[in-house]
C-alpha cells in the first residue's frame, strides 16, 4: 500500500512540477510533510540542504530519499520512476503532435503566465525554510553573508553551503 501512495504522491508532484527546482519545493513539502507525513519539517530541511549539496535535480533527490526512507530500495525506485512518468508520457505525446506544440501561441502564453506563479512558489519555499531554519542572530548573519557572497559571485554556491555548515559546527556547540 505504501508503494501505491508513493506512486500517487510523486506522480502528482511530477505533473505539477513547473519552473524547476526550488519552485517545486512547496509542492514536495505539501505532499511528504503535510499530507503523508513521511518526513518531519526538520527532516525536510535536512533533505533540501542535502539536495543542494549533491548533484541532480532536487525533485529526483527528494523522490529517491523519501522513497528509500519509507519503502527501501524498491520504494526509492517507485518514487523516482513515478516522478519521471508524467515527463515520459508528455514527451511521447509531444513527439506525436509536435506541430501542435512547437511555437504554439497558447503554449507560449501559458508559459509566460506561469512566471509569476514560479516566483511566488520559490518565495514560498524560501520563506518556509527561513521560518523553520533561521532561529537566532548567528543564522541571520550567515544568511545575509552567504547571500552577498553568492550574489556577487565571490564564492561557489556549493562551497558556501559547506563553509556555512562548518561555521555551524564551530558556533553551535
Amino acid at each position, binding site marked *: 500500500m505504501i508503494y501505491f501512495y508513493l506512486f500517487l504522491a510523486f506522480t502528482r508532484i*511530477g*505533473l*505539477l*512540477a*513547473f519552473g524547476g*527546482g526550488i519552485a517545486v519545493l*512547496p509542492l514536495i513539502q*505539501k505532499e511528504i510533510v503535510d499530507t503523508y507525513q513521511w518526513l518531519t519539517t526538520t527532516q525536510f530541511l*535536512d533533505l*533540501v*540542504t542535502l539536495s543542494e549539496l*549533491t*548533484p*541532480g535535480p532536487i*525533485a*529526483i533527490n527528494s523522490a*529517491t*530519499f523519501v522513497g*528509500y*526512507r519509507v519503502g527501501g530500495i524498491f520504494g*526509492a525506485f517507485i518514487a523516482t520512476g513515478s*516522478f*519521471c512518468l*508524467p*515527463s*515520459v508520457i*508528455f*514527451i*511521447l505525446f509531444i*513527439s506525436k503532435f509536435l506541430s501542435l506544440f512547437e511555437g504554439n501561441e*497558447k503554449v507560449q502564453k501559458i*508559459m*509566460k*503566465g506561469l*512566471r*509569476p*506563479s*514560479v*516566483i*511566488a*512558489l*520559490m*518565495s514560498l*519555499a*524560501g520563506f518556509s*525554510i527561513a521560518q523553520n*531554519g533561521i532561529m537566532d542572530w548567528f543564522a541571520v548573519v*550567515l*544568511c*545575509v*553573508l*552567504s547571500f552577498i557572497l553568492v550574489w556577487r559571485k565571490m564564492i561557489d554556491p556549493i562551497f*558556501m553551503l*559547506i*563553509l*556555512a555548515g*562548518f561555521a555551524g*559546527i564551530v*558556533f*553551535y556547540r
Partner: protein
Amino acid sequence: MDILIKRKRGIIKVLFVSFFQIGAFTWGGGYAMVPLIQRELVQKKRLMNDDDFINILSIAQSFPGAIAINTAGLVGNRLAGFPGLLVAIFGSVLPSFIIMIAAATILYHFSGLALLERFFRGAIPAVVALIATGIFSIAKRALKRRFDLILSGLLFVLALVFGFHPFWIILIGALTGLVRKS
C-alpha cells in the same frame, strides 16, 4: 540493416554514458546542465546541431517535470526513439539515485549525531540565501511588467496566508497568461 542496428545501439550507449556523466556532475539540475549537454552531444559527439538543441530546450520547458529530465528524454527520443528516451532519463537519474541512497543510509545511521545536526543548522541559512539569489535572478529577467510583479506578490500571499495548494498557484498563473493580451 546490420549497420543501422549497430549504429542505433551505439547511439543508445552514448546516450547513457553522456547523461550519466551530466547527471553526476551538475548541481541543482535544470539550467546548470544545459551547457554540458550542448558540449557533449552537439559539439563533441555531433549527434545534433545547435538549432535542434535550442528547439528541444524550448519544448522541454513547456510541459511539467524536471527540466533536466525533460531535456534528456527529448534528446533520447529524437535520436533513438522510445528506447533512447528511457535510457537517457535512466542515465541522468541514476547518479542522484545512487548518491541519495548512500546519503539516506549515512544520515539514518548517524541521525542524532550532534556534529551533523550542527552542520545542518549552519547550512540551512545558506540554503535560504541560495534560494533568494535564485529568486532575484529570475525575477530580474521575468518580472519586467508591473502586472507580473503584483500578480506574483498576490499569489505568494494566497499561498502563505490562505494556504492555497501550489496547484491553484500554477493554475491561476496559466489562466491569466492565456487570457491577457501579450
